[in-house]
């Protein structure tokens, strides 16, 4: 199983340590670590990439921080995800998105990195609900309000 771990633009080193311990021989992992300090002799780490979609495509499962930019892009691509709240941050706003993904069964939610190993086992047999959204429909109205039309 190819696993890609991404933290978007915000470092979250403890997540990588947790995932590292959850891996076994059947896993192949790449970690996108942003400006973090994590390193490992056997795991490929990358910082920021322009073509992150390519990494998404090549992975069977993506473990992502609960940043909405990353999560929505992944759900729109129909990827299998484990969405992890970043508990290193002082604000807890990512909790909303973890709860949403979990409740709608779009992916697996993870509020605590101590659950990572369990989630990695669970995800192999997990069948996500396809992501559907109410498409944004106010672009024209915004142009009118700002007198651009």
């Amino acid at each position, binding site marked *: 199983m190819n696993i890609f771990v991404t933290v*978007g*633009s*915000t470092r979250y080193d403890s997540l990588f340590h947790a995932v590292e311990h959850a891996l076994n021989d059947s896993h192949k992992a790449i970690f996108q670590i942003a400006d973090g300090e994590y390193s490992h002799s056997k795991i490929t780490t990358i910082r920021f990439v322009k073509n992150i979609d390519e990494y998404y495509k090549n992975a069977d499962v993506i473990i992502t921080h*609960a*940043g*909405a*930019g990353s999560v*929505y*892009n992944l759900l729109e691509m129909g990827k299998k995800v484990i969405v992890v709240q970043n508990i*290193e*941050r*002082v*604000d807890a*706003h*990512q*909790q*909303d*998105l973890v*709860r*949403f993904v979990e409740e709608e069964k779009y992916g697996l939610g993870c509020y605590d990195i101590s659950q990572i190993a369990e989630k990695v086992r669970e995800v192999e047999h997990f069948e996500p609900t396809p992501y559907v*959204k*109410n*498409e*944004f*429909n*106010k*672009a*024209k109205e*915004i*142009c009118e*309000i*700002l*007198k*651009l*039309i």
Partner: protein
Amino acid sequence: MKDKSITLIIYGRGGHKEQMKRLLSMMKSHADFDFISISDTEDNFDSLKHFRCSEPRGKFSVWKAPFQLANNAITTLVQCISILKKFKAQGLISTGPGMVVLPALIFKLLGKKVVFLESWSRFYTPSLTGRIMYYVADTFYIQNETLQSIYPKAIFAGRL
């Protein structure tokens, strides 16, 4: 070239930027317009002029917060005044976070339009910036219907 009014766009790094990227591409299918940007990232979506500001609130330390906020407030205030002097700015649109508050207040006081989108990552709790912008913005949009009970007067826009 006809005299077009200029819009100020304000967005933070990460998800805020991603929302602005999507919003701009949708707006461009309806209107041809020029804009100026304020952000704590370098990415400017080809704006006429980009102003880089500091991060309004640190993600990791509570102690630095008051200083970061003050620094950000002064920077955005100066940038906003400079924009108003040089350009014919008519309106402001933002996907958050906090660096929008002072420019929005100034625009509002000058009778210019202010549009704010509450973050798409909010479902059950409001953001601090959202709670303030709910009273400042002329039009306040939410992207998740579950927020309607928290922001009764907000308009549900669908998700970017």
